[in-house]
């Protein structure tokens, strides 16, 4: 990879902005994330975030904001720390024994990693959809009702029915499953399972939804449905999506963040990232030179 990057540096088109660079292991990184990582008003903000697995550092000094009702896509080559980063946002990394997160991460100004913050309550506010559809081995109804029951969101059966119906409707699954709510969620197709997982996540009305490569296990048609769904959900929710598909990032997101080997290289309006990337690493990635 190092060699490739040197090639790129040679081919660099003139006229691109050349900010202050630092050279780490032969790769030129910008000293500060290029573009518009920070916003004036934000739903979540991350400052000086480092993540370690034991002695190994996976994320280096990331600074970024996520705006209210914004879809932000995180792209980058495999192993660049995208998943690690979003799993830090709702403290899913707590379950990994050796993982340590430092820096300041806030949700509506509240420190996510302070001792006062209960990770359980946090995860109810910051929901998550995983790479592989993971419906519980329960009925479709019970899958969606799982969260609301946990958090006591419905006192009567009718209320619960309503939550289940609206969540499934929003996830675009209601029409397909309304006659077989009592059947196991594991019996649905892959795409339906993933939409069920999205319905399950929105049933507890989270403020932010994190999606970790939600379409990587799905066929193109199911992917298209999920992408439509993301566009609709962005009216009510703040969404951070990790994806390997640049087309997907281009289609669904407002802003795009490019990670490279644990460093956040560039954050910009999605259109800008894909038409006029400011940093040569971003440019190399989106033109398919690595990844």
């Amino acid at each position, binding site marked *: 990879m190092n060699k490739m990057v040197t090639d790129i540096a040679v081919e660099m088109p003139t006229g691109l902005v050349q900010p202050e660079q630092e050279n780490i292991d032969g790769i030129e990184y910008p000293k500060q994330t290029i573009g518009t990582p920070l916003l004036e008003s934000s739903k979540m903000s991350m400052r000086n975030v480092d993540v370690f697995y034991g002695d190994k550092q996976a994320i280096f000094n990331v600074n970024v904001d996520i705006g209210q009702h914004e879809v932000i896509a995180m792209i980058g080559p495999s192993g660049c720390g995208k998943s690690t980063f979003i799993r830090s946002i709702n403290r*899913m990394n707590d379950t990994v024994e050796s993982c340590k997160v430092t820096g300041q991460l806030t949700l509506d100004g509240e420190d996510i990693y302070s001792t006062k913050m209960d990770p359980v309550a*946090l995860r109810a506010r910051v929901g998550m959809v995983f790479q592989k559809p993971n419906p*519980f081995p329960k009925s479709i109804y019970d899958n969606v009702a*799982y969260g609301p029951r*946990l958090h006591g969101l419905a006192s009567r059966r009718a209320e619960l029915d309503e939550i289940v119906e609206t969540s499934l409707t929003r996830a675009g699954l209601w029409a397909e499953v309304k006659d077989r709510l009592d059947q196991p969620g594991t019996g649905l197709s892959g795409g339906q399972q993933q939409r069920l997982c999205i319905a399950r996540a929105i049933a507890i009305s989270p403020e932010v939804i994190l999606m970790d490569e939600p379409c990587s296990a799905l066929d193109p048609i199911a992917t298209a449905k999920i992408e439509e769904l993301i566009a609709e959900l962005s009216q009510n929710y703040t969404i951070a999506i990790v994806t390997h598909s640049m087309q997907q990032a281009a289609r669904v997101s407002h802003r795009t963040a490019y990670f490279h080997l644990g460093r956040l290289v560039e954050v910009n309006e999605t259109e800008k990232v894909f038409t006029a990337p400011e940093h040569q690493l971003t440019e190399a990635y989106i033109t398919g030179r690595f990844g």
Partner: protein
Amino acid sequence: MQTANLLIVLLILSAVAYYMARGRSVAQAQPLGGIRHLHSLPFFYGMRAAIWCALPSLLLLAAWLLFDEPIISSLLIGGLPENLQPNSAAEHNLLLNSIENIASGALSAETSAPALVAAAESLRDLRSSGTNLVTAAVLSLSVLGMGWGWVKVSPILRARQQVERVFRGILLSCACVAIFTTLGILLSVLFESFRFFQAVPATEFLIGTEWSPQMAIRSDQVGSSGSFGAIPLFVGTLLISFIAMVVAVPVGLMSAIYLAEYASPRLRGIAKPTLEVLAGIPTVVYGFFAALTVAPFIRQTGEGFGLQVSSESALAAGLVMGVMIIPFISSLADDVINAVPQSLRDGSLGLGATRSETIKKVIFPAALPGIVGGVLLAVSRAIGETMIVVMAAGLAAKLTANPLDTVTTVTVQIVTLLVGDQEFDSPKTLAAFALGLMLFVVTLVLNFVALRVVKKYREQYD
């Protein structure tokens, strides 16, 4: 030649066959440009020759060892004069025995009938000529096989396929050993039980409530008939197994949940092997622990409360049996819980569930079929467990559900019926087979159901 010597010679011959055929295949490959022009590797050519050398002659030898006795004895009996021909099977065996004894010198030849002495003479002749004949046949067959294996070596010979087919056959026959042994045991138990049920009606055995298998020798004595109602034994077995499961299931499950979900890897690394050491303790040790420590303790404690406690209470045996089964359940449940995919845990935690909510509502239900399977396997172990109950439970067949009372179990009765010198045609000893059959059927059904449940569960996530 003796069989053992013959086997050693065969081994040497097949080793020779291996090296000769292997060498020949390599030599044949040389002009073609190396062994990659052979159909199979040289090993397979050598192996094929070794198999041809050893297998047919081994089969011949085995056939001889199986059938030499019947052939020789029928020749002997056939050679006897008309007036000595046996009338019954018993007489036939007796006759053979005395011929055998004369031949070996245990019976004096002078006092025996001349026809028998002659028969003994011919027995010795037959034996030695038979052995010589078979040695010659086996050796020539193996040399022939060796030659065949050597001659057939050629670059196009499909030696690998042939050798692998033979090895597959050997694997298959090994698998069959276990199955046929089980079948054989089942059949023998079945036949003996059938004889028992000819003496004692099945209805009495299955629904009778009185068990006293001791039969008097003469029919005019007290208790001459014996009674074979097995219900008290089954109730006793179930009572002790129930107590054992009451101890083992909750403790085993909870320790499994702790180990699988909460324990740090370091603690788990220590605790799990420790728990499994418990499973390695011989049950006889548990047995005297139950009889000498637990039973007196329960008796004293119970009497402290003013209860009447038998010194061989079902409670003591059940408790210790439960402790014995804990590692079994815990280890099985731990495996099942670990097999629940991490993605389900993540999914639940990601919805804001706590760890314990995740365990109760997602992991436990997902693992339940496997846990049920494990518990059923444990039940069948408890029912079949013998040593602890022999030492700690009583012998009196009482029909009671009181855990402080003494009860006896099916396995204990089988042991007491068969310990010591017994005649094998009285209902008393045959009853052991009937009990064994019941035990066999019950545990078989339980294991079958349990394994089906476990298997069904496994399919869900694979």
